[in-house]
Each structure stands twice: as structure tokens, then as C-alpha cells.
């Protein structure tokens, strides 16, 4: 393969142009939603679309106060977006926490030890990811109703493990396999127990991997829609469903939806920018030997 230094200026220009195009394509929806959230209802619907307009914070005021007014007097209602937002935080962080507590030891066991059925367990976990949610949602609904887990945080956190646990286990497995067992052996000989060795050597070395897999799993959990739609009620539903409340029989309140979306993507965006370095290193660690 050619090194980046060996590229001609011409190639560089083409690559940069492609990057810019990609950048625009990916970022445009984000920018458009941000613009929408700052427009009045009539500006949103005007054609051709306006890029210059008088910004308004009305939509943010609407979603924060909870009492929302549509254009004119149509569709006045109370939608507690901050409550949905809090639900999102509780369910997403809760499921990541559970996944890490369960998934780190699981990934460690799969990476380090030989035991019967190891690959089967690993594969079963992975299969949670490629079975579409819609396939399992009806049996899950029946199970949840019988167990009384419908519309509870515990229930949602539990079902979110289908999303987060396989991701954490599989990313961490590759990561942990790359940590030489001899480092642990050295620590054992140094006079530590297995448990202390794990805390002293393995965990610090796996930290970037844990951060990366945790973050990725968080984003997936945060984005989830269908599980909460079927298995939750407004008490526990996340912000992805909160935005839906503005689509009513009377009108679709685009401005409020846009403001909700902006509110919803801020945590994910902030987290991924903050831990970008971890993410890139963590995701490529298994593939490329250092």
C-alpha cells in the first residue's frame, strides 16, 4: 500500500474533496435540524427553504416548559420533553452500567479461558445483534406482561441488554485477547491473587476498550426506538419517543420536533467528540496489532 507521503498533490486534492463531500452529506441533516429548531413554524414550511431568517427560541421554550403551543391556538398540549430526556438518560446509562458489569467479566472469560461451549455462548450473544428487534418484540411483550415488567425502568434496561451487551462483549473480547497473558502471570508471581491482578493490570490496560465499547453501545441504546415503543409507556419512554408526541392528529409541530431532536443528539454528540480518540483506538485495536 502507498503511504500518505507518497501521494501526489493531485491525489490529495481529490481525497480532500471527497472528504468534504462526505462531511457535508453526513453533517447536513444535523445542521438542517438545528436550523429548523430555530425557525418559526411558517419559516419551516416556506418554499424555497430559507437559510436566512430571524431565529426564535420559542420551540426550545416550548419543550422545556412542557406546555406547548402550536401555530395559532391549534394543538395546545403538555408534552414533558425533559421527562423523556431524563428517561433516556436513566435507561441508557443504566443499561450500559449493567452491560459493563456483566460484559467485562464475560469478555474476559471468553478471551482468556478455554471452556466447553465458549464459542456457543459468544455466538449466542452475537446473535442478539442480528436478530431484528421486530422478530422478538411480540414474545417479549407477552413475557413482560406476565412478569409485570411492562413500563418499568428495570424492564427497559433489561431488554436493552440485547443491544448493548453483545457489543461490549465482542469488542472487549478482541481487546482483551491482545493483552498478553504474561502480564497477568507476571503479576501473579509478584504476589497478587487473580482478582487483584485483574484490577491492577488487566483493567487499566483494557480501559480504552471499555470506554470505546461502552460509548458505542450507549449511542445504540440512546437511539433505540422500537423496544421502548412496545414495552414502555410514557412514564419510562425515552426522548426518541418523546419527539413523536408532537405529531398529532391536528398538526405536525415540526419546530418542536426539531428542538427535541437537537436536545436528543447533544449528549451523544458531546460524548463521542469527547472520547473520539478512545473510540478510534478502541475500535481499531483488535484489527491492527500495535
Amino acid at each position, binding site marked *: 500500500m502507498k503511504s500518505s507521503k507518497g501521494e501526489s498533490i493531485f491525489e490529495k486534492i481529490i481525497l480532500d474533496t471527497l472528504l468534504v463531500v462526505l462531511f457535508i452529506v453526513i453533517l447536513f441533516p444535523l445542521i438542517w435540524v438545528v436550523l429548523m429548531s430555530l425557525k418559526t413554524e411558517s419559516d419551516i414550511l416556506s418554499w424555497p427553504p430559507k437559510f436566512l431568517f430571524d431565529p426564535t427560541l420559542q420551540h426550545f421554550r416550548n419543550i422545556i416548559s412542557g406546555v406547548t403551543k402550536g401555530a395559532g391556538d391549534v394543538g395546545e398540549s403538555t408534552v414533558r420533553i425533559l421527562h423523556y430526556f431524563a428517561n433516556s438518560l436513566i435507561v441508557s446509562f443504566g443499561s450500559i452500567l449493567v452491560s459493563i458489569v456483566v460484559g467485562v467479566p464475560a469478555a474476559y472469560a471468553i478471551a482468556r479461558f478455554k471452556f466447553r461451549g465458549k464459542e456457543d455462548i459468544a455466538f449466542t450473544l452475537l446473535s442478539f445483534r442480528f436478530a431484528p428487534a421486530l422478530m422478538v418484540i411480540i414474545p417479549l411483550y407477552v413475557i413482560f406482561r406476565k412478569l409485570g415488567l411492562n413500563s418499568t425502568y428495570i424492564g427497559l434496561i433489561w431488554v436493552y441488554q440485547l443491544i448493548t451487551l453483545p457489543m461490549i462483549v465482542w469488542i472487549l473480547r478482541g481487546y482483551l485477547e491482545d493483552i*498478553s497473558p*504474561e*502480564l497477568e*502471570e*507476571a*503479576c*501473579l*508471581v*509478584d*504476589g*497478587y*491473587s487473580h482478582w*487483584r491482578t485483574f484490577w*491492577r*493490570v488487566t483493567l*487499566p*490496560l483494557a480501559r480504552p476498550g471499555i470506554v470505546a465499547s461502552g460509548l458505542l453501545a450507549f449511542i445504540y441504546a440512546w437511539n433505540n426506538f422500537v423496544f421502548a415503543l412496545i414495552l414502555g409507556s410514557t412514564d419510562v419512554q425515552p426522548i426518541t419517543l418523546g419527539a413523536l408526541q408532537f405529531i398529532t392528529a391536528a398538526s405536525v409541530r415540526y419546530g418542536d420536533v426539531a428542538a427535541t431532536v437537537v436536545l436528543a443528539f447533544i449528549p451523544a454528540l458531546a460524548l463521542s467528540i469527547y472520547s473520539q480518540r478512545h473510540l478510534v483506538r478502541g475500535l481499531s485495536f483488535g484489527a491492527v496489532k500495535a
Partner: protein
Amino acid sequence: MGTVVFESVTKTYGETVAVKDLSLEIAEAEFFVIVGPSGAGKTTTLKLTAGLVPITKGKLYIGGKLANTLPPAERNVAMTFESYALYPHMTVFENIANPLRSPLETLTEEEIKTKVETVAELLRMGQLLERYPRELSGGQKQRVSLGRAMVRRPAVFLLDEPLSHVDAKVRQYMRVELNRLQKELKTTTIYVTHDYVEALSLGDRVGVLREGELVQVGRPSEVYSRPVDEFVAKHLGQPEINLIDARITSSNGTVRLVAEKNPKLDFILDGKRAETVRRAGRAQVRVGIRPQAIKHSSGKTDRLVGEVYVFEPSVFSGQLILDFQGLPLTVLTKASDRFEVGQRVGFDISPADIYVFDPQTGKNLETTR
């Protein structure tokens, strides 16, 4: 305190036997070297001793105590790894201090600092303490891993190929240092290497390992001069020993060994040696001649004359391959000697310097009963 006793210790991984029926007693303060080619089970032997892999069969005593099921922490051994296994997220200081911070120790921060600095001084790396392992050269990493092993004063050192990845100059120096350190600390040491020079120069005793089996144990001079079989003779010594197929004829008390490829090369054994060789009852044997044992000269008075096939000069000693009428012989020469290809060289071999091996089993006929 620091004795290590293996009693028919066996380690198997499924079908493969890594260490087979190992019985060995290592004395207090002894420097014991295990030498053998890669895959012979050397590292496994160390890991068995450290408790990092469980023993399949047999008994292991460390300091007189049965250690089979003791966890590594309770064996009071220290080990260095071929990969050094330095903790990448800790500084050199923290790496060396790690054994001192274990739950088994109760030292103050001040005491830890003193101990680490003493060891760092001993290994001449006081200036490296604040660095991270990735910032060190191979030789420096080596010293850190030794330091981590030494800081606690364990009953037994287990050293796994400690010099294999350091460059030649450092190796020479470290070999001398290791010898000095061991004599100074008087700690029982099991040292694993594939390098016979290390084995012969460092060990109080040497054990030769092949495919998980201990082939021979003895003082370095013993193992070198009385190899029990072809494998030991070939493995210890550079250039490799000459092995020549020969026929036996015996007549009134003497035995004559005649090289099959060239009958002009023959040896006559008499007395006890003849008796021993004859008693083995072989029609054919393999004669081992160390390249060092072939005395060459340019004089024409020699009984044997060969032609130079290849000559490889070097600063320390040359290596000459003579073609003795179809029979190649490797000869070690002095550094100052010079030869031309095709040149005729006279040589002589004293029957006292040869080994006689059984061609089927490879055993040395004169060391086996």
C-alpha cells in the same frame, strides 16, 4: 529455603506432552541452567515451578514444602519472562515496586523507595526510574524485569531466556553481571536458555531438555565432555560436532573403527574403551568428533591429508570444512590461520577425543550401561 525438587513431574496439554516425567533436585543457592531447542518444554518447566500452569502428574517441592497446589503468590518465587512482561501502564519505578506492593508485604512508601533504588543501582538503571517501558531499549527492559524479580529477595529465581533479545554487546556484559549477581545474592536460580554458551558459562549444573525430557544433567564440563547421546553432543558446541558412520572390526583386545565413506580415517581403541564398545555388540557405530579436536597443520608428515572445501575466517576463530576424499569434516581453526580453497591440509585426530554413538538410539556407548 530455596531448594526445588521435581518428582516425576509431568505436564500434558490434551494429547501433547510438554514435560515428561521430570525428576530433578536443585540445591540451595545453585545456578541451574536448563538448555534445549525451542519447544523442548523449558518455559513450561519454569511456569510449572512458578505455579502458572498446573502440574498434571508428579510432585513439586519448593523449600521442602509440597507446592503442587500453592498459588504463585505463595511460592516465594520470582520470574522473568522472555517477553519481559513489563506493565506498560506503569513507570519503571512502579514496575519494580509492584512485588513490594503486594498484599503479602507490609512496607512503608519510604521502604519501598529505598528498596527499588537499591535494586536500580545494582542494575545500573537509576536514571530510568521515571520512564515507561515503551521508552526503553531491549537491554533496559531486560534489566527492569530482572529488577522486578530481584527486589523482593525470593527463594528462587526463574529466568526465562533473559538474554535472548538483547544485542550481542549487552549480552556479553549481562552474562557476566548475572553470574556476579547470583553469586552475590546466593539465591537459587533456574535459568532457561537455548544458547549453549550461556548454559556452559553460567551454570553450576546444566540440564539438557529435549521434547519435554531431561536428557542429561551435570556440571557444564561433564555435559560437554561426556554427552550421553548425539543430541546433547550436537546441541552443545559450535560449530556442530562431526558425526561419521563407521564399521567396527575387533581383534585381540583392540577395536578398530573405520569410516564408511573413507576407510583411510580410522581409530583404534584399546583397553577398557575397546571392551565397552565391543560389549555393545554393534557392527556399526557413529563416531563423533568435535571440530575443536581436529588438529591441523600444513606439514606433510601428517597421516591424514584433506582438501579445503570452504573456509570461513572470523576475528575469534575460523571454521574450515575439509573434504577428506568424499568425507566432509568441520574443523575449528585459530583466528590467524588462513586457507585457500583447494589447499591441501594435513590433520590428525586423537582417538582419546572421539565419542562413539549407537547409530540406532543415538546413545553414547561409553556413558550408558
